[in-house]
């Protein structure tokens, strides 16, 4: 009960802060919209993925993945803020286990990401995508799994950094490569071998691929089977949250 309360209140705090800061919501939604309409819209004339799918539709699952990637990482990296503003110390001296703190943080990132996914889902009709209720449920379920995995990875990243000055480095050297090497913008099959290898090591790849399954049901836009995608995501999530817990325990 005590541990559940701790998880609950850590999540509640993040959600409260997220909904309170309208500017944060707007700015996190701006990025996917820019990519979707400015990059996707522009490239649609050049690239045609086939099977009656336009490029802007093709990158839609990738944009969902990007939204999850950015907002989960940002949410987890807020641990560095907490460290700098001292609140982490208040949490660390409380009689709750380190694992509850880590799970609370990972769930916060998950929920905040899924809220944004739902907002972007509302755009799908404008892109000419017809998604049934089942597809929408699939998308939300897969998004939750991917978001939990990335949030846990974010906690691992955050435990290596002491101050927020490293923020730029995290974005440039971790988040951007994870985004481009995820099959979000182009099919994995057509990548050069070295990039293909890197892409296959990236958990975001399987999240985006699973989202492709869910969005384009029946049309073969995906690179892997849904079982591979979901299985690998679950394995990656479990490993990440355990590593995050151990690192968090050791560093604090």
């Amino acid at each position, binding site marked *: 009960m005590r541990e559940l309360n701790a998880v609950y*209140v850590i999540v509640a705090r993040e959600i409260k802060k997220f909904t309170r800061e309208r500017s944060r919501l707007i700015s996190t939604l701006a990025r996917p919209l820019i990519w979707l309409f400015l990059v996707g819209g522009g490239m649609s004339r050049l690239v045609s993925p086939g099977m009656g799918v336009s490029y802007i539709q093709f990158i839609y699952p990738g944009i969902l993945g990007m939204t999850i990637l950015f907002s989960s990482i940002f949410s987890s990296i807020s641990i560095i803020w907490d460290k700098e503003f001292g609140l982490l110390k208040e949490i660390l001296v409380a009689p709750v286990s380190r694992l509850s703190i880590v799970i609370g943080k990972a769930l916060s990132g998950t929920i905040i990401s899924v809220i944004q996914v739902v907002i972007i889902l509302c755009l799908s009709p404008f892109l000419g995508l017809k998604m049934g209720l089942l597809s929408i449920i699939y998308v939300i379920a897969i998004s939750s799994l991917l978001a939990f995995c990335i949030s846990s990875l974010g906690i691992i990243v955050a435990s290596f950094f002491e101050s927020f000055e490293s923020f730029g480095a995290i974005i440039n050297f971790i988040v951007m490569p994870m985004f481009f090497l995820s099959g979000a913008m182009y099919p994995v099959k057509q990548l050069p071998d070295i990039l293909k290898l890197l892409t296959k090591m990236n958990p975001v790849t399987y999240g985006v691929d699973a989202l492709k399954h869910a969005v384009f049901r029946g049309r073969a836009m995906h690179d892997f089977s849904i079982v591979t995608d979901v299985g690998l995501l679950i394995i990656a999530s479990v490993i990440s949250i355990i590593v995050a817990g151990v690192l968090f325990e050791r560093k604090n």
Partner: protein
Amino acid sequence: MISVKNLSRKFGDITAVNDISFEVGEGTIFGFLGPNGAGKTTTINILCTLLAPTSGSAFISGHDCTKSSSEVRKSIGIVFQDTTLDRDLTAYENLLFHAYLYDVRKSEMKQRINDALHFVDLYDRRKDLVKHFSGGMKRRLEVARGLIHRPKVLFLDEPTLGLDPQTRASLWEFIVELPQKHNVTIFMTTHYMEEAEVCNKIAIIDNGKIIAMGSPEDLKKTLGGDIIYIKTTDNSRARLDIEKLLGVEVFEEDSELYLMSQKGDYCIPEIIRNLGEAVLSVRLQRPTLNDVFLRMTGRAIRESDMSSGDNVRQMVRSYRRKFERT
């Protein structure tokens, strides 16, 4: 309530805390004084279970700080040196967050938070974001937060650091009330010596070792008592009179007589009665904890006369013997 025995903590080659021992009684205010880097925060971190000691033991309310950290955490409240509030939450939300972390019963939460807010006089500001609070308000809110789960011991690490004199004074007024009102033992650190006057017991730490311990009064007595300065119409005669009267040595400096006494305030009337109209002026200087501290840390010894310096060192040695055995 707190019992520390032969506690040491090393960081590589540096010994931050070196074999310290002390006891803190229930419902008392214990002051842990020392210059920056003396080992105060390291000691607090060990007691708060954030740091494991290299050797020795520490118990809070019967719970071992190294083995049953969860029990220890439940029975302590902490106000850290740096603010640990969430600036983007309101005062009420900060306390609510704390109440959940400490598993306060849901039915009691609201009442306890409101009581705490009233106690620190922040009830009217409960819906304001903490980032709009002044330094003193934040500190008060942190004390309130530290009390929400009804701890047995409240740690205050430099509670008045960075506050203006007025806020410091009002914060102290309120801290001294805590033991009675909230049934809590207080363990505080400070390097403002005059603030330590409110403590029931003080330990002075320097270079990781406790060099003196006792009540503020006891510690000040180790300096040889108060100094009385007297100006008279005939100093040489008055000097003989006083020496005969009190049996202490009287010195003269800049046409002013001075003498040391354990009870200066009682000596003055006696002197005046005896010397009568010859007295022109009298002033009494009481030793402050600051004097004690300067003397103890050795920095003032060479300035003072050796006899009292030796005295102090002896006192320190006997103190150490006395407390290291327990």
